[in-house]
């Protein structure tokens, strides 16, 4: 168990991930002692898998969506004494702990309040080409992503220091929360940095990942939410 990361909380939204979640947690807990999993009303044995580890478990009694799960995990972590850094992490094993450490170094150096992982800062070799096209299009169509000069608005790997974490209000329960977070950051005065990360596209994550069709849903949710305000 590594020392010195007691002020870091890893927030993992979980929805029907019984096959991989225990391995992912085992791996993360070796470096970070504080992990909170938000089980978003899974119908499988995800919760039992989490209970077998040293990770904290928060259970939504009903399924609300990934955005809602992130906000719940964030609030739980904010309520723990001594928490200063908050990392959102995917449950399907596509993110690497090494990347979190790099992002943490950047935040600890005081150069940024928010660090976002990007798949495109260096080589984008591991990203399937169709995904590359879709994600780049989303970025090009999103005015906020352009203003922040973001290269990757839909990466689940993000690090917040306490200030921006407390200010964050994710109201989009579904998948549109990524665009919502980008918009909120663009409107705020927090210093946002991007950090190159590697996303491991396994057979499992590929099957569960966002499709082109989901991109249409995200664009619709985002435009409706702007109208509603």
């Amino acid at each position, binding site marked *: 168990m590594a020392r010195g990361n007691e002020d870091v909380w890893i927030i993992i939204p979980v929805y029907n991930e019984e096959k991989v979640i225990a391995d992912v947690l085992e791996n993360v807990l070796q470096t970070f002692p504080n992990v909170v999993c*938000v089980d978003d009303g899974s119908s499988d044995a995800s919760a039992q898998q989490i*209970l077998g580890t*040293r990770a*904290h*478990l*928060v*259970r*939504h*009694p*009903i399924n*609300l969506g990934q955005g*809602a799960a992130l*906000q*719940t995990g964030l*609030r*739980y972590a904010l*309520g*723990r004494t001594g928490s200063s850094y908050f990392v959102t992490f995917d449950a399907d094993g596509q993110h690497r702990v090494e990347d979190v450490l790099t992002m943490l170094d950047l935040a600890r150096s005081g150069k940024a309040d928010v660090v976002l992982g990007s798949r495109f800062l260096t080589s984008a070799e591991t990203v399937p080409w169709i995904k590359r096209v879709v994600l780049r299009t989303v970025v090009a169509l999103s005015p906020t992503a352009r203003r922040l000069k973001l290269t990757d608005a839909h990466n689940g790997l993000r690090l917040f220091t306490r200030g921006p974490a407390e200010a964050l209000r994710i*109201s989009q*329960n579904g998948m549109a929360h990524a665009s919502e977070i980008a918009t909120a950051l663009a409107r705020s005065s927090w210093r946002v940095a991007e950090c190159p990360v590697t996303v491991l596209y396994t057979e499992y994550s590929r099957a569960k990942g966002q499709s082109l069709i989901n991109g249409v849903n995200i664009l619709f949710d985002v435009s409706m939410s702007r*109208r*509603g*305000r």
Partner: protein
Amino acid sequence: MKLLIQAVLLAAVLGFLIVFVRGQHGARMRASKRLAFIAFLFLNAFAVLQPEATSWVAKHIFGVGRGADLLLYALIVAFVFAVLSLYLRLQSSEQRTTELVRTVAIRDAEILNRDRGLLPAPTLLAPTEPPA
């Protein structure tokens, strides 16, 4: 004459847009919705008693061919309005549910994770230390 019905329908669409953008559900909004509903009932009764009147209004006031056409246009406008206001209401209802679920989930989780030994016992309820 055709211009008038176009103006009325466009004004209705514009009205919905404004309502949708502002998304307010104040007392004034509710009151005006109810007044509109009462006016609608009275017009209904009038149309039942004087069926030809709708055609007259359609032709001479709005410049629409028949009363039935006017009803169809009005129905579409009313339908869009109903859908939008339901959508807004569903959205705010979802937000409330989320808040409730989140509060319950975190409260339960604090008890659960304390029992698993991951969280310290509550300091407020612990007995004070005996004097040395």
